[in-house]
């Protein structure tokens, strides 16, 4: 398994533990990641609000870099995945637009010819590694751990761009959670918005959004929540205290990055997975699976 790797800004900024735990999991399975160090920010849908052509061209450049290395592109951020998938769809379907965008990209080997495969690590685990190999690698089954899957918007919607999970009944996170020996819980919030995009401009609305989902997960018996999107992680972990204020109750739900959950089941230590970096303590999760 070999991929061009687009870690995204958050894994290199506010969530270094996502980068760290991704490396641990990749190394474990011998997955080779060729990092695109000169790729720009994907724009998170925000740059597009400034200028659609600008967002298209910056991302076309990223896709082009992967394509010229002859590799599929791997993401570890639901938002990056959503943005890049929609850029891919637009440029794959409209060749005239692709030409125009390419003409603005200086370097020949950064132009995008169309047809690149872009995969989130979650999907790569399911499709390329396979559940059987994943199961066989589990050294510390997460038996008894009740995990709330939280997809985040952009890895699901619009489903015409992502073409993976059913946007109202996704099951890829559940499949991995089950393979690791844990129990996925079913709750409405799993496909909802974490509130991150309006965290600073509409703080109260965002706090309520994440609060409702966290309480929903908690009332359904979750010991922790796992997400394939670091923006969701920021909203649900860093800002959980705000959610508690908005909901008028304590929540205290540990939030795990997708590769952290995998890494725990593979037998890695919380330290190797950067668990101490979270704002909400993960100690309850670790106790439950007999670590730390």
């Amino acid at each position, binding site marked *: 398994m070999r991929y061009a790797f687009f870690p995204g800004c958050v894994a290199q900024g506010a969530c270094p533990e996502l980068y760290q735990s991704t490396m641990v999991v990749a190394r474990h399975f011998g997955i080779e990641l060729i990092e695109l160090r000169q790729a720009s920010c994907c724009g*998170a849908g925000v740059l597009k609000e400034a200028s659609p052509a600008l967002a298209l061209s910056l991302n076309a450049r990223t896709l082009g870099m992967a394509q010229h290395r002859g590799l599929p592109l791997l993401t570890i951020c639901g938002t990056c995945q959503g943005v890049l998938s929609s850029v891919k769809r637009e440029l794959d379907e409209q060749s005239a637009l692709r030409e125009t965008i390419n003409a*603005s990209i200086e370097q020949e080997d950064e132009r995008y010819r169309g047809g690149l495969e872009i995969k989130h690590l979650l999907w790569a685990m399911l499709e390329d590694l396979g559940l059987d190999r994943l199961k066989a690698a589990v050294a510390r089954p997460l038996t008894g751990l009740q995990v709330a899957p939280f997809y985040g918007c952009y890895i699901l919607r619009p489903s015409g761009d992502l073409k993976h999970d059913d946007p109202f*009944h996704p099951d890829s996170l559940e499949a991995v959670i089950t393979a690791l020996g844990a129990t996925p819980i079913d709750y409405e919030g799993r496909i909802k918005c974490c509130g991150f995009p*309006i965290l600073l401009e509409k703080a109260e*609305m965002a706090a309520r959004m994440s609060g409702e989902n966290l309480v929903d997960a908690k009332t359904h018996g979750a010991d922790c929540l796992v997400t394939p999107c670091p923006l969701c992680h920021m909203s649900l972990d*860093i800002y959980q205290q705000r959610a508690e204020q908005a909901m008028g109750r304590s929540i205290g739900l540990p939030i795990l990055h997708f590769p952290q959950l995998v890494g725990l089941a593979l037998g890695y230590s919380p330290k190797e997975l950067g668990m*101490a970096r979270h704002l909400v303590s993960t100690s309850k999760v670790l106790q439950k699976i007999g670590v730390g």
Partner: protein
Amino acid sequence: MRITFSLQRFDPERDHAPHQEEFRLDVAWRSTTVLDALIRIRQEVDPTVAFRHSCRSAICGSCSMVINGRHTLACKTLIGPEIERHGPTITVAPMRNLPVLKDLAVRMEPFWQKVRAVTPWLEQAGGASSTAQAVLTKETRSHLHNVDACILCGACVSSCSSLEVSPGFLGPAALAKAYRFVADPRDGARSRRLTMLTQPDGVWDCTRCNMCVEVCPKDVQPMEAIVRLRRAAITDGLTDTIGARHITSFTEIVRQEGRLNEGRLPAQMLWRHPAALLAQLPLAIKMFVRGKVPLPWHPPLDSIRAIRRLFGRWGTPSSWTN
């Protein structure tokens, strides 16, 4: 084939809370829609089941409901694919984010109020006496995107994440309608419209969740219309909201560094709102302690020249500078 329909029932005169009731029906599942089945249930089993419908062909927009968790038109939903995906029980509930009248029928008044609030008709520049005429060309029409196709069914409103926590939000349908007039060259009220739409409960309250894009049966893509409204507002100089500063600050940071720097974004967005900025401080300290705050100033990527070239080519109006 015998299918079970689990309908949400609620009669405000009898019930304290909604409950599910099951109806079993033999249907030709390949050719039957959920609406067909509901009509048969009402005719053959229980005449008191309440729901709205009219055209049966996805035109009138009156049969929106939540079917197996998806906000959609009952007359456009075939039973076959539903049971293939979710098994032989089909769950039907009324739309969300609107008050339930009875069973599957909701009160649409709040929906219409918001559509009316965006003045959904053309206004003439310079008052009614103006004789100037603007013509709608084919080219401009394409800018109206798909917003003309809206059948006012409310599915997007039912699915909207922001409405769930903030009932006053104008919502996807009304905002898509608003864009339709902002983008129409025959309209003379652009600036008044954009000023109104950038107030609280307007375009900056949308959390960009893409639910409305996902559910719309007519591919109106309301969120895309909202994005265009935001862009129009910023282009017209309405940059003094935190929402607008989110866009301009984000863009400027990526232009300078090539990547987003979360260490800089809050400060750049909120410097005119000291209280909000101060409220970030305790969190910032906790994040710093855990190594989660990137340096406030990153050296730009080595490839920054190539990136800035794209900013130069496709970049943003000068009215944007922070």
